[in-house]
C-alpha cells in the first residue's frame, strides 16, 4: 500500500492543489498531543467530518487548517492522541485530508480508532528528529518503509499487523463487517 501515490490521494491532490508533488510534513516537536488539542470539546456537539476538519489541531496550531493540503502528513513525538476516546480526533484529521500521522508512539484508543476508520498511522521512533517541517514523504505501509524525499533518506518501521492493514485497505472496520 503506497499511501502518497494511492489514487484517492492523487485525485484529492490534483483536485485541490492542481499538483501531485504534495505530501508535505507538518512537524510538531512535542509529546502528548492530546485529543482536546486535536479537536477541542467545544466542537463535540457535532460529528460531521467536514465541520470538525475546520477546527483540526486548533488548540495547538491555529494556522494548521489554513496551511494543510490534501495528502500532507502530521509528524509528532510520543503518545500522539492521548486522552479522550473521541473518534472525532481522527475524523477531524482525515477531514483535513491528511494522508497519515507519523509519530514516535500513539495513545491506544487513537491508534485503534485510526485503524477502525481506515486511516493510516505510522509508529516511527524518533520521527521528529528524522523529519523536518515541509519535508516531502512517501509511505510504503505494508513494506514498512518511509521515504523522506527531501532528505533522500529511507526509514524502516514495523508495519501494522496484517489484520489492521486489511481493515485500513477495506476502508474501515464497519466496511469489513458489512462485507
Amino acid at each position, binding site marked *: 500500500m503506497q499511501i502518497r501515490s494511492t489514487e484517492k490521494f492523487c485525485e484529492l491532490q490534483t483536485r485541490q492543489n492542481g499538483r501531485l508533488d504534495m505530501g508535505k510534513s507538518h512537524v510538531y516537536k512535542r509529546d502528548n498531543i492530546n485529543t482536546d488539542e486535536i479537536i477541542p*470539546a467545544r466542537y*463535540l456537539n457535532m460529528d460531521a467530518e467536514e465541520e470538525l476538519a475546520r477546527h483540526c489541531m486548533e488548540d495547538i496550531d491555529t494556522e494548521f487548517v489554513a496551511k494543510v493540503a490534501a495528502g500532507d502528513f502530521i509528524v509528532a513525538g510520543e503518545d500522539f492522541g*492521548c*486522552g479522550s476516546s473521541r473518534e472525532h480526533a*481522527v475524523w477531524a484529521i482525515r477531514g483535513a485530508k491528511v494522508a497519515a500521522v507519523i509519530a514516535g508512539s500513539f495513545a*491506544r*484508543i487513537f491508534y485503534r480508532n485510526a485503524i*477502525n476508520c481506515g486511516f493510516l498511522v505510522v509508529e516511527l521512533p524518533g520521527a521528529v528528529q528524522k523529519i523536518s517541517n515541509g519535508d516531502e514523504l512517501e509511505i510504503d505501509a505494508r513494506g514498512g518503509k518511509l521515504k523522506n524525499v527531501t532528505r533522500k533518506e529511507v526509514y524502516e518501521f514495523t508495519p501494522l499487523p496484517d*489484520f489492521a492493514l486489511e481493515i485500513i485497505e477495506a476502508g474501515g472496520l464497519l466496511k469489513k463487517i*458489512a462485507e
Partner: protein
Amino acid sequence: MAMTITEKILAVHSGNESVKAGQLINADIDVVMCHDVTTPAAISMLAERGLDRVFDSEKIVVTPDHFQPAKDIKSAELHKRLDDWCKKHKIKHYYPLGKAGVCHALLPEQGHVRPGEVIVGGDSHTCTYGAFGAFSTGVGSTDLAAAIATGQLWFRVPSSIKFELSGKLSPAVYSKDIVLEVIRRIGTDGARYMAMEFAGDGLADLSMEARMTITNMAIEAGGKNGIMAVDEVTRAYLAEHLKDKADFTVYESDADAEYVRCEEIDCAALEPMVAFPHLPSNGKAISEAAGLAMDQSYIGSCTNGRIEDLRIAAEILKGRQVAIRTIVVPATPEIWKQAMDEKLFDVFYDAGCVVSAPTCGACLGGFMGILAAGEKCVSTTNRNFVGRMGSPKSEVYLASPATAAASAVEGKLTDPRKYL
C-alpha cells in the same frame, strides 16, 4: 498457564482456555455503554451501511450525560438522534433526562457492572468499572458501532503492570491522591496498551467509590484498563446495587502471573496531591503547591462526583464561605437526591457555591463552568490538558474534593489537612 485477572476474563470471553499478552482475540461483550457525544455517530455509521441493528437490547446502557440538559441546538440534535434510536430499538436501559447521570457513576450505581464481565463504552474513562473486577475499556465510535451491532470486538490482550498499595491513608488524603501519585510516577504513557492492576492491603480500607476514582484515571497513564480483585467491600456494594441479575464470576490473578512492571505505593506516606497544567502526570505534593491563586473550584465528574466526594467537600465547606466561584455537580440523580436529603445542598448554598444538575458539563469544557483566558481552576476532574475546561489560555489543577473545597475557601491552592 498462569494468568492475570485481565487475561482470565479475556480468555473466557474469547472461547480460549488461556490467552497471553500480545495475542489478538475476538471477545464477546457483556455491556455496551453509550452516551451523547460518541454514540450518535456510531448509530449513523451503522444506518449508512445497512447495519441498523442491536445485538441485544438489554445489554446496551444509554445515558446522555455530556451536554445534559442539552446546552445548545447542536447538542439537542445529538440527544434527539440518541432518543429516536433508543425508542426504535427498545433499549431497555435508557436513562433520559431525569434519570441520566454521568455514565461512570451511573452504571455501577444502577447495577450494570458485574465482576468478570467485558464492558466497553464510547468514552475513555470506561476503565472505571475495573474497580469491580471486570475488564472494561473505552472505545471510539466505530468500535462502539461494531459492538452494538455484533456484540463482539477485537482486542490485543494487554500485558499488566501491578501496583501494590500498602498502608493506610492519612486524614485528608484520598484515593485521588493515590492515583495522581501513580500517574506522576509512571507518566501519561507509562501504561500505554497495558492493564493496570491494583492490589494490596492499601485497597482494603477504600470504599468502592474511592476505588473507582483510581481505576477511572487508568487512561490518564495510557492504560487499556484498570482492574482490582473482588473482596468483601465489592460484594457488599454489589449486593446493594445489582438488580435483575445478581450472579457473577470472580477471577483472581494467579500468584505466578506475569507482570511487566511492579510498583509499590506506600499510602501512609502520601500527601494531598495537585496535578499542575497541562498533564495529569504533573503531580506535586500540596506542600509544594499551596498558595497559588485560583479563580474557580469544580467539584464533580466521573472521577469525584459521587456522594462520598460531596460529603468530604461539605465537611470542609460547612460554616465557611468560598472565596472563588465554586460549582458542585452531583454525578447522578440518586447522588443529587441523597445529597439533598443529607442537607449537603444547604451547606453548599450557605458557603456560596452553586449546585448543578448531573452532567459531565465543564469537566470537558462543555458548559456549566467554562473558564476564560488566564483563569485557573482547581478541579476534582481527570484531565488538565490545554483548553480542557474552556479557553486554551486557562489552566486546570487536578485535586481531591477535599483539596478543591479547601482551595475554594481560601481562593488559592490549600492543604485540606488544616480543615479536617
